[in-house]
C-alpha cells in the first residue's frame, strides 16, 4: 500500500494506483476527457493527450496528469488549486478554440463529453480567436461517418480499433496543429479494413465518429403510399431502447417498441427473432451435416457482419469454416420479399425491409452485392441503429414511455427464447446447441435447455457440452482481438473445436456499435445481457425448432432445412478482402 495525501486528505492505496483512481476512491472529482479504462474488455486509454486532468504534485515543477501517473509513497497532491483549475480551463478553452462549436445541430448534442466538460468547468468565453482546422467529412463508409473537425485527439478510437479490436484502421497523421486521426494513406473509410463494428463510435467523446444516418430515407419510404414498409427488430434492441427514454438499464420494452413502430407508420412490425430461429434451423442442420459428412470443423457462427468482414480481411485462408448461413436479418429480408410478399399479395419490388439493429456493421452488410442479386433486389433495404430509431421516435412526437404494450404482427413475428439470447455473447451457440441436442438425441425425453457453461463475460470462453453420448468442444469469443487469438490458434493447429461463436462487439450485440451510449460503463452491458436471459426464461417456447411459424415456413415454402430452396435464399458466400 502507498500512503498519499490528496487535498489534505490522507489515504492509502495499492501500488500502481493512478492519482485519478486514488482521488475517485475518496470522492475527489478530477475532470477527464481522453482517459478511458474499460478493464472488462482490456481497453486502457491512458495516453495523457488532452491534459484536462492536470493536478499539482508537491515537489514537481510542472503539473501532472492524474489519469496516467501512478502514485508514489508520500505523494502530496492538490487537485483544486487555482493553478490546476486555471490550467484545466485553458486546456478546454484551447480545445474549444479549434472546435466547430455547433452544438445545437450536432449529432452528439446532449451526449457529448466535451460539451459536458465545458459546462462542468463553466466555460463562458473562449479567449483564443485563431482559425480552426478544416477537413472534409468522410461519408464513404455505409456505417461510420468521420468528421475530423470535431476530433479532440483523445485517441480512444485508435486504442479501441488497434489494441482491442486489432483491426488497425486509425492512426494519428500529420504534425502540430494539423495533426488528426486518419486512415492509412488517407484512404476513404470504405476502402480500409474497417469492419464497421462501430466500437470507435461507442467510445468517441464527441461527434468526430458517428453512425451514418439513414432515417431520412426511411421516413421517405414510410410516407410513400406505393411502398409497403416492413420493420424487423433485432433481439438486442428491445432491451436497450428504453435507456434512450430514461428507463432503467435492462428494461425490456418490446411491447412499447412495437407500438412505436406502428405509430410511426410501418405497414408491418415483425421480429428478427423469428429469423434467428430460422438461422438456428439452418445452422444446426449445417453443423450436423458437416459432422456427419466429414465437413470442415469447427463451424463458425456467421450472424455478426463485423466479424464476417474481419475474417474476410484478416484470415482469408479460413473462409471455409464460417457457416454459410446469412445473418438473421438478411434471412428475414429474403423470406419477407418472397414468402411474406406472396402471402400478403404485395409486389416484392414495392416491399421495403427496414432492419432495426444494435449494429452499424449491418448497414454495410445490407449493401453487400451477394446479399441482393435474386429477383427481389436487396434482402434488406435500410438498417437503422437503436440510436437512430430512438431519434425517429422522438422526432415523430411519440411519448414512448406512455405507449401501450403491443404484439408483433403475425407470420414472421413469433420467436423462441433461443432467439432472444442471440443478443448476447454465447447466445447463438447456446441456441444451436439446444436444437442440435434434440435433433441428435431424439429419444431423450428431457433434453437440456440451459447451458450455463456457455454464458459469461470473459473475452474467450471454452466449454464442453455433452449430449447423445457425444462431447462437443465449443469456444466463444467476443471482441475482435479475442477473435484474432482464437483464429490464430486454429490457423496454427493449436486448438480443436467443433463449433465457435464470435461476436465483434464486447458482450455481443448488447454492446453493439449502434446501441445507446454506454457512458463508458461496462456494467451496463452486463445488465442488458441479464435482460436478454430473463426474456428467454419467460418464453413458453425456448428452442428454435419449436417455433410454429418457422415450422410453417418450411412446410409451406422452404421444404427441408438446409435443402435447395433454403440454400438459395438463406445461405451466402464470402470473399477475400485486402488488408489495409
Amino acid at each position, binding site marked *: 500500500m502507498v500512503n498519499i495525501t490528496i487535498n489534505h486528505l490522507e489515504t492509502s492505496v495499492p501500488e500502481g494506483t493512478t492519482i485519478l483512481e486514488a482521488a475517485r476512491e475518496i470522492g475527489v472529482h478530477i475532470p477527464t476527457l481522453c482517459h478511458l479504462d474499460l478493464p472488462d474488455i482490456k481497453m486502457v486509454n*491512458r*495516453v*495523457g*493527450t*488532452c*491534459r*484536462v486532468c*492536470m493536478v499539482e504534485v508537491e515537489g514537481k515543477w*510542472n*503539473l501532472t*496528469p492524474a489519469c*496516467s*501517473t*501512478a502514485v508514489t509513497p508520500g505523494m502530496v497532491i492538490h487537485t483544486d488549486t487555482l*493553478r490546476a483549475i*486555471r*490550467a484545466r480551463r*485553458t*486546456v478546454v478553452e*484551447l*480545445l474549444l*478554440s*479549434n472546435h466547430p462549436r455547433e452544438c445545437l445541430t450536432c449529432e452528439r448534442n446532449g451526449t457529448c463529453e466535451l460539451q459536458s466538460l465545458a459546462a462542468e468547468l463553466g466555460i463562458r468565453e473562449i*479567449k*483564443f*480567436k*485563431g482559425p480552426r482546422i478544416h477537413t472534409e467529412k468522410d461519408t464513404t463508409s455505409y456505417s461510420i461517418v468521420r468528421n475530423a473537425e470535431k476530433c*479532440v*485527439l483523445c485517441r480512444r478510437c485508435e486504442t479501441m480499433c488497434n489494441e482491442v479490436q486489432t483491426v488497425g484502421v486509425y*492512426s*494519428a497523421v*500529420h*504534425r*502540430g*496543429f*494539423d*495533426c488528426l486521426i486518419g486512415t492509412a494513406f488517407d484512404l476513404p473509410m470504405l476502402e480500409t479494413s474497417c469492419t464497421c463494428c462501430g466500437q470507435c463510435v461507442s467510445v468517441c467523446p464527441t461527434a468526430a465518429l458517428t453512425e451514418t444516418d439513414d432515417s431520412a430515407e426511411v421516413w421517405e419510404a414510410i410516407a410513400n403510399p406505393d411502398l409497403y414498409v416492413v420493420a424487423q427488430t433485432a433481439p438486442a434492441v428491445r432491451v436497450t431502447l428504453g435507456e434512450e427514454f430514461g428507463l432503467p438499464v435492462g428494461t425490456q420494452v418490446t411491447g412499447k417498441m412495437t407500438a412505436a413502430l406502428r405509430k410511426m407508420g410501418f405497414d408491418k412490425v415483425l421480429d428478427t427473432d423469428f429469423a434467428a430461429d430460422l438461422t438456428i434451423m439452418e445452422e444446426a442442420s449445417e453443423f450436423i451435416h458437416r459432422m456427419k459428412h466429414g465437413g470442415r470443423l469447427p463451424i463458425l457462427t456467421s450472424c455478426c457482419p463485423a466479424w464476417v468482414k474481419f475474417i474476410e480481411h484478416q484470415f482469408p485462408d479460413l473462409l471455409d469454416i464460417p457457416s454459410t448461413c446469412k445473418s438473421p436479418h438478411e434471412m428475414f429480408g429474403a423470406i419477407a420479399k418472397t414468402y411474406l410478399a406472396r402471402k400478403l399479395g404485395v409486389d416484392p419490388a414495392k416491399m421495403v425491409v427496414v432492419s432495426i439493429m444494435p449494429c452499424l456493421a449491418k448497414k454495410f452488410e445490407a449493401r453487400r452485392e451477394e446479399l441482393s442479386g435474386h429477383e427481389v433486389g436487396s434482402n434488406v433495404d435500410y438498417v437503422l441503429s437503436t440510436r437512430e430509431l430512438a431519434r425517429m421516435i422522438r422526432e415523430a412526437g411519440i411519448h414512448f414511455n406512455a405507449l401501450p404494450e403491443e404484439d408483433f404482427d403475425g407470420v414472421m413475428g413469433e420467436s423462441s427464447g433461443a432467439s432472444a439470447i442471440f443478443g448476447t455473447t454465447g447466445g447463438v451457440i447456446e441456441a444451436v446447441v439446444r436444437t442440435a441436442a434434440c435433433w441428435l438425441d431424439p429419444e431423450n425425453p428431457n433434453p437440456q435447455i440451459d447451458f450455463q457453461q456457455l454464458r459469461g463475460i470473459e473475452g474467450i470462453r471454452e466449454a464442453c457440452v455433452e449430449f447423445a453420448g457425444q462431447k462437443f468442444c465449443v469456444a466463444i469469443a467476443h471482441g475482435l482481438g479475442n477473435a484474432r487469438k482464437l483464429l490464430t490458434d486454429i490457423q496454427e493447429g493449436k486448438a480443436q473445436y467443433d463449433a465457435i461463436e464470435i461476436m465483434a462487439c464486447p458482450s455481443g450485440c448488447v454492446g453493439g456499435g449502434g446501441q445507446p451510449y454506454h457512458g463508458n460503463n461496462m456494467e451496463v452491458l452486463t445488465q442488458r445481457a441479464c435482460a436478454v436471459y430473463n426474456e428467454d426464461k419467460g418464453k413458453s417456447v425456448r428452442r428454435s425448432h419449436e417455433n410454429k411459424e418457422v415450422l410453417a415456413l418450411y412446410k409451406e415454402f422452404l421444404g427441408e432445412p438446409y435443402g435447395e430452396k433454403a440454400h438459395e435464399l438463406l445461405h451466402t458466400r464470402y470473399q477475400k478482402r485486402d488488408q489495409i
Partner: protein
Amino acid sequence: MSEKAAQVRIALRNCGVIDPENISDYIATDGYEALAKALFSMTPDEVIETVKKSGLRGRGGAGFPTGIKWETARKSQSDVKYVLCNADEGDPGAFMDRSLLEGDPHCILEAMALCGYAIGAQEGIIYVRAEYPLAVKHLQLAIRQAEALGLLGDNILGGDFSFHLSLYFGAGAFVCGEETSLMNSVQGGRGEPRIKPPFPAVSGLWNAPTNINNVETYANIPQIIRNGWEWFRQFGTEKSPGTKVFALAGRVNNVGLVEVPMGTPLRTIIEDIGGGIQGGRRCKAVQTGGPSGGCIPAEHLDTPIDYESLAGLGSMMGSGGMIVMDEGDCMVGIAKFYLTFTAEESCGKCTPCRIGNRRLLEMLTRITEGEGRMKDLDELDILGNIIKDTALCGLGMSSPNPAISTLRFFRDEYEAHVRDKRCPAGTCKKLVGYKILEDKCMGCTVCARNCPVSCISGARKKVHVIDQKRCVKCGVCHSKCPFDAIARG
C-alpha cells in the same frame, strides 16, 4: 584572453585532429583504452560509480545526471536491455553532434560499449539523422573496423562481454530528439512521446530497460573512465562539471563550434572567442538552448554558463545552440521565428502543444503586424506558462520559452509594437515604412535602380519618390542609399 585559451577540448579533442576513417588514428590517441580498462580491471558498478562521481550531466537538454541514469538502467531487471544514442540533432544551426560523429565516430562507439558493459546490455542503436550522410558513412565504417578488430561484436577483446551496434535513420522530425519519441520511431511507430514515468531506464525501447544519452554526453565517457572522475571534475563547476560544446552563431565575428568549461561567462564566449559583435555594434541578447531556449539580455552576459543559471534566466542549456543578436534584431520577431519552428514540429499529441503553441504564434503574429492589444501581452505570458505547465513532453514544456523570456526582458519592445505600432529594430515589415528625405536626396538613382519591385521613381538629380502602395518594405533602398536620404520608421 585569446580565442584558444578559453577553450578546453574534451568532447571535441580528436575532431579535426585524427582521420575519422581510420581506427588506428583513434587507437593512437588512446582510443579503446577506456573500454579495455573497464572490461578487464573494473566491475560494471565501478564504471557507474566513476560516471556518477564525475558529475557528468546530459548534454542534450535537461542535464540529468548520467551516472544515475546508468545506475537505474543497471538495476532494472531484464534479460534484454538497450543502449541508445540520440544523434537526432535537430536544433536549427546546431552541429555539435554532427561534428563529433563525423570527426570522431569511434569515441561514441567506445562510450556505448562502456555503457552496455555497465548496465548489462548487449545491443546498442545509434539514432542518427539521415540528413547527415557523412556521419552515417563514418559510423558505418567505424562499426565495421571495430568489429574487425574485436572491439565490438561477440567477446570483445577476447573477454566475456559482447556488444553489437547498429544504426537507425531518423527522418528529420524535431520531436524525435525527445527520447521517448525517438524510441517509438525506432519501433516503427509514429514519432510522438510517451508518458513518463516509466522512464526509459525502466521501460524504454520495446519496453526493455534502455539507457539513452546524446552524442556529446557519450563523447565525454571514454576519457572519464580512462582519466578518472577527479580529472574530469577539474573542469567546470561543482554542479556542472566538465565542458560544453556550443554552436556559436549570429552577429559575432567568429562563428563555429566552441568548447568551454562550464561556468565560463557568456561574455568570454562572445567577446574573446567570438571576437565581438560584427561591425562594432552592441550585443542585445543571446539565445541559448535551441528553439526551445530563451533569450538572455546583454546585461546578463557575465552570467557563468551552467544548467542552473541558464534556467534561472528563463533559458536552458539544451544541446548547445548559441545565437548572438544585436540591435538590428527584433525580439518579438525572434520569438515568433522560434515558435513558428516549434509549432510546426510539435507532434500534435497533447492539447497545449498542438493548439496552445498555434495560438501563441497567432498572438505574436498579430503583435508583429501591429494588431496586438496590450491585453495580449498578459495573455501571452499566461498561456505560455500554462503550456509549459501542462505539455506532455520536453518540446511543449519548453516551446514557449522564447516568447516568455523576450517578454520578460524586452517588454518595452513588445509595447512599442502594440502601443506605438512601431518595430524598434525595424524588421517587422508591417510596421516599417521607407520615406525619401527631400533635403538629403541627390537624385543619384541608386535606390531606383536597386529596388526589386521598381516602385521608386524620379529623374536624375531630382528628388525621388517611393510608391508606398507597391513598396514591399525590403529595405534595399535604405541600405544602398549613399546619402542616408532614406528614412525608416
